[in-house]
């Protein structure tokens, strides 16, 4: 009985946090804007936290040199995000299986020893994340949790390998339990895979990858 109450309380409070962080009228664009201004003040925390959490690469470190073909990996990754925007966990799982295969099939070229080592580590992590997403067709929250790390993997992979596509690094301050999370997109318009149909346009472009 007491335990049930505790659970209910935590749900209520967690719910309260989400609503509080997001504003109530999510469909209104103006409101979303206000929201982001509101979040802006905390932005500094995020960048700090992101750096502490991952050995992230500077995405501009690649001077236009292309060291492998990421097209297939990226296409599957984008399509995975599209499914998660639609809250479609089972399609996301299917796509992620293809993503896993394309990650496993990827080979870079002209990489230095250090770069190769880093690519191997990124691949190990990305494959693990992608496998989890495909194995959890019934748990969209779990899939999204792994998308957080997978997106960082993809971003770092692009930084080393390079791409000819124009891409966007997007950021949602509410994902990852309000700690914020990034994702990579090939469209300028925000389409948020973490929030799904609840708030598909929540987020902003962090930077453009050319």
């Amino acid at each position, binding site marked *: 009985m007491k335990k049930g109450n*505790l659970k209910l*309380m*935590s749900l*209520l*409070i*967690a719910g*309260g*946090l989400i609503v*509080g*962080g997001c504003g109530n009228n999510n469909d209104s664009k103006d409101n979303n804007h206000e929201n982001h201004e509101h979040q802006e003040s*905390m932005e500094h*925390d995020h960048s*700090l*936290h992101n750096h*502490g*959490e*991952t*050995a992230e690469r500077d995405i501009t470190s690649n001077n236009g040199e292309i060291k492998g073909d990421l097209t297939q990996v990226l296409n599957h990754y984008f399509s995975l995000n599209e499914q998660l925007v639609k809250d479609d966990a089972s399609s996301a799982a299917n796509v992620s299986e293809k993503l896993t295969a394309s990650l496993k099939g990827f080979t870079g070229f002209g990489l230095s020893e250090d770069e190769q080592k880093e690519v191997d*580590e*990124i691949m*190990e*992590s990305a494959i*693990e*994340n992608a496998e989890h997403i495909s194995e959890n067709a019934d748990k969209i*929250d*779990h899939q999204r*949790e792994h998308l*957080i*790390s997978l997106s960082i*993997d993809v971003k770092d992979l692009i930084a080393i390998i390079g791409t000819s596509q124009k891409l966007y690094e997007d950021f949602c301050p509410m994902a990852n*339990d*309000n*700690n914020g999370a990034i994702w990579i997109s090939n469209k300028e318009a925000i389409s948020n895979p973490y929030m799904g149909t609840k708030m598909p346009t929540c987020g902003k472009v962090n930077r453009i990858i050319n």
Partner: protein
Amino acid sequence: MKKWLKKIAIVLVVILVGMQFIPTDVNQQEEIPKTDFRHVYNVPNNVMSILQTSCYDCHSNNTNYPWYSNIQPIRFLMDKHIREGKEELNFNEFGSYSDRRKKNKLKSIIGQIKDEEMPPLSYTFMHGNTHLLQEEKIKLIEWIINLKFKKTKKQILIIGAVMPITFSRHNHY
């Protein structure tokens, strides 16, 4: 009709007895390897003991087998848990993971505990002492968060969402 039932009973007994001869895995290792979690981070005793009681049985090379683990099909299920658990995360080998993977794992540990996915019900059901109490969850999550990044207001909120009563004073939203 009665003959029928008797036949089924005999078949069941034969199967159960036969099962006891299924070969079993033994997941035991005395020595704690250098790559163990406790050598990677400075793990306080109270956190370490939680990990050892509730996680190490399936997530390390050393399982503390209870007496009924010698009975099939219990052992069969347990072996499966251990095989899968170690593949996912092995605390004994944590030090050999890349930094990227370590961070992923720490993050997943928080997520799994918070969502009550771990330890799994099918395991705590058989091994009652491994069930994580609310205060143990908080201790563990709080420690990992402190380890992962400087605690900001937001991270306190994560803990707040797990245990609103204790941490409600931090909820400024």
